C-alpha cells in the first residue's frame, strides 16, 4: 500500500506492506538507523519515536498507522548544526556510554518535558522507566534531563 506521512518535517510517499513494522521501515527503507531496536517487543524503549509529538514504540507500530502522521526520529531532533538542549545536556552530563539506548531516551525525554517542564528527579525516573539502559545506571541520564529542563525553562 501507499502511505503518506511526514518524517522530520519532510513529506514521504512510500509503497510498503501495510504490516511492515515502523522500525524496519525507518531503518531498512528510509536509512534512518538512529532509531534502534533492542527487544522487538515493547520492553526496552530503544525504538522510541515521536508520532505527532507523542512518544511511541516503533517496533510495535505498523506502517499503515503512519498514514497522515508527522513523525520525529532522532535524526530530526536538532535543527541544523546546533544540538537540541536535551542532546547537549546528554553530552555535557555524561549520559551517554554505549549510546544504543540514547536515541530512545532522548525521544522519550522530549515528550516528557513537553508535558512536565519542571520535573523532580523522581518524576524523571518514573517517566523514563520504560527505557532500559544497561551502561549508565541511569544517574547521569537523570542529571541530563534535569539540567536540560532547567535550560529549556530559561530559554522560554
Amino acid at each position: 500500500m501507499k502511505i503518506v506521512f511526514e518524517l522530520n518535517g519532510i513529506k514521504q510517499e512510500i509503497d510498503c506492506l501495510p504490516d511492515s513494522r515502523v522500525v524496519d521501515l525507518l531503518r531498512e527503507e528510509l536509512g534512518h538507523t538512529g532509531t534502534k531496536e533492542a527487544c522487538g517487543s515493547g520492553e526496552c524503549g530503544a525504538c522510541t519515536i515521536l508520532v505527532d509529538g507523542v512518544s511511541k514504540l516503533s517496533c510495535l507500530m505498523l506502517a499503515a498507522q503512519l498514514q497522515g502522521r508527522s513523525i520525529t526520529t532522532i535524526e530530526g531532533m536538532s535543527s541544523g548544526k546546533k544540538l537540541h538542549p536535551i542532546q547537549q545536556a546528554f553530552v555535557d552530563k555524561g549520559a551517554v556510554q554505549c549510546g544504543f539506548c540514547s536515541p530512545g531516551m532522548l525521544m522519550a525525554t522530549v515528550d516528557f518535558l513537553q508535558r512536565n517542564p519542571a520535573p523532580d528527579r523522581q518524576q524523571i525516573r518514573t517517566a523514563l522507566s520504560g527505557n532500559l539502559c544497561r551502561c549508565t545506571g541511569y544517574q547521569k541520564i537523570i542529571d541530563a534531563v534535569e539540567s536540560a529542563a532547567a535550560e529549556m525553562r530559561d530559554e522560554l
Partner: protein
Amino acid sequence: MTTYASPIGSSLKRVDGPGKISGLEKYAADYYPDNCLWAGAKRSDHPHALIKKIDISPVRNLPGIFAVLTHEDIKGANRVGVPEMDQPVLADCKVRYKGDPVVLVLAENKTLLQEAIDKIIIKYEPLPAVFDPEAALAENAPLLHENRNNKNLLLGGKVIRGNSIAAMSECDAVVEADFQLPWQEHAYLETEAGVARVDEEGILEIIASTQTPWRDRNELAYALGWPVDKIRVIAPYLGGGFGGKDGITVQGLLGLAALHSGGRPVKMWNSREESFLSSTKRHPGQVHYELGCKNDGTLHALNCRIVLDTGAYASLGGPVLALAMEHAAGVYRIPHALIEGFSVYTNNPVGGAFRGFGAPQVLAGLEQVMDILADKIAWDPLAFRLKNAVMRGDETGAGVWMSNSTAIIPCLEKVQEHPLWTSRQAWVSQSPPFKQRGVGLAAGLQGTGYGPMVADIANAKIELLSDGRFRIYSGVADMGQGNNPTNVQIAAEVLGQAAECFELIQPDTLQTLPSGSSAASRTTYSYGNALKAAALQLKERILTRACNMGMGLYAEDFLLSSGRLNHLPSGREIPLGLVAASMRPEERVSIYSYTAPVNRYPDKINPDIRAAGFPHRVFAFACHLARVQIDELTGEVEVCDYLAVTDAGKVLNPQLYEQQVQGGAVQGMGYALWEDFKLDRGELMTRNLATYILPTSMDVPDILSIAVETVEESGPFGMKGIGEIVINLALPAIANGIARAVGQHIFKSPLTAEQLLLILEKRPAE
C-alpha cells in the same frame, strides 16, 4: 598563544557523544549494504542429541532462499574458542545444548528467512543430558565432549597455603556456608550483529559488534579454512558488551555465509530471544566457604570450593575459574587456605566472560561469611575487615602478592567515616511501618589484565596528518566504557592539543594494530600506556624536525599547542601542518608496543590454573555500602542509598570514572536482586526482557562515588582499570544489609522478594 589546561583529571566530554546522540554513529547493527542477504541459524531444540538427519529439501528451492548450509559446507576445522577450540560454527555429529546452531540459511529478507528456518527438519537421537555441574563430575555422567582425559571437567585445580584443615581447628570461631549464584545475562542493548562480504580480491570483510577483532580473525581463519591474511575484521562502537562479545558470537556464521553468498553482502542480527539463547552468560556457581578466625579478630584459616557451570562449551570457562580462585580470599591476609576450583561442562547454555570474570561469584560468598564471622566474635564488620586487610607487599589468602598500589585500607576508612555508615543505627531505627531496614557493606578487589602466561600487549599507532591534525588508530574496541575518548585525552595531554585536533580510527585488522581484547579492566591501562609512549615519540620527532628546519635551536624551546608549535624564545607560532609537510609519511606515524608487567611470584600454583590467568599483578580495590529497606508485606527490597569507594588509581576523567562506578553498581544490583535467569532441563524459561528483569530507572538510587586516588606507577598517569571492580560488591553489600534487617542470610541469589517473603512470614509475631 592559547592558555592550556591539562586534560588529564578533567571531565573532558566524550568525543563519541555527539555522533551517538544524533543517531549518526553507525553500530554493527546499523549496516544494511545494498543487495544484502539475511542469514540466520536453525538451532537445536535438544540439550544433548546425535544429529541423525538434516532435511533441507523443504526449503532448498523456496523462492527467496539463496543458500542452506550445514557443517559439510565448512572447509576449515569448524571449531572456535579460546583457549580451548571446542565450539562448532555449525554442529556436526551432535548438539550439546538447546541453542546449538545446526543449519545456516541465507535469504532475501527476514520474513522468508524465518519461514525457511521453521520448515527445516532435523532428526535427532536424544542422549542422556546433564544439567548440574556436580552431577556432571560423577563417574558415569554423560560426556559432553569425547576423548577428553578429564571428561566433563574443563579445568580444575587447588591453591594450598599452610595447612587449613589443622588451622581450622585452632580457630576460636568458624563459619560455614554454601552459596548458589545464578547465571547473569549481559543484556547489552545491541544484540549480536554484523555484516560480511567477500570482495573481488577474496578478502572476507566482517563488520561486527565484537570486543575481540584480532582474536576473531585468527579463530575464523582456523574454523572456516580461509587464509588469515584474507580476513578483515572491523569493530565499530559496540552497543554494549560487558564480556558477552569477548569472542565469536555471529562472526563464524556470518563468515560462512559470506563465503557462500556469491559475492553478495550478508547481514545477521540476533533477535533478543536468540541472543538470550545463544550468547554466553556469567557462570552460575556453587561456592562453599569455611572461614575461621581467632578471638582477637585475626583471620586464620579458609577452605573454599568453587564449582562453575561452563555449559556446553569452554569459552572462557577456564580463565573465569582461575580468577574466581585468585579472588576467593578477597582482600584479606589468611595464613592457611585451601581453595579448590572446578569448571565443568554441562548441557546448559555457555558460560563465558562477564564483567568481574569470576570475582563476583566468590566475593558474594566470602563477604557474607566475613559478616557472619564478625558477628560471631562480636566485632564490628568494618573493623573486622580493617584488621585483616592487605597492605602493599602482603599476600592475600589465595597467595597473591600485592606488589603494586594497594589502597583497600583507605577505602574501608572512607566508608568508616562516612555519614551513611556512622548514622546507620539512627537510620535503621527510623524505619517506617511495615518496613525493615539494614545497612551492609562489602570489600573486594579485581585484577587488571591477562595474568602471567598470556602476554598483555597493546600496539598503539598515532599519526600526524599533513594538515597538522592527528589520527589515533585504536587497537581496542570501545563497547561503551569510553576508552576511545580516553585515548584522545591521553594523546591530547602528551601533544598539547585540544580534543578537536584528533580523529579516531576504530579497531580494524587492516588499519590498526593488534592490541588484545576489550576486557579484563585493561583497555585504558594497556592501550593507554602504549599510546602515551607513541605520542611522546611523535612529539619528539615533531620538535626535532622543527629544529632541523631551522625554526629554533633546541627542542625544549618549543611548546606544542592545538595545531601549532610555539617557539617560546621568539614568540613565533608555526602551524603544525608546516612541520608535517617537511616530514615523510612514515615519520609522521608513531607506533609503540607495550607489554603489561606480570606477577612472576609466587610460582606455587597448579600450572593449568596459572596458564588460565592466576595470578595478576595490578589490582583495583573497593568497599561498597548499601542501605536497604524491605517491605514486610511484599518482600520487595529497596536500595535506598549506595556508596562506592574505589581505588582504581588516579582518575583520568571524573565523568567517565563515575559512569563506570554508577553503571557497574547498578548492574551489580540487578545481579543481586532481580536478574533471575531460569532454565528447566536446559530449556530457557526467561527468553525476553519481560521475564528477565533488568534494573530500570525507578529501581535504583543515585550512587555516591568516592575515589581513593592512589598512584599506580605502572599505569598511564597513575591509573588502573576500573571497568570490573565496580560490579563485584553490590550483591554481598546488599545481602549483608538484608541479613541485618531480617536477621537471616539468604544463600541463594538473586535475593528475590519471594525468598524475602518466605523468611518474613516465618518470623514470630512481635
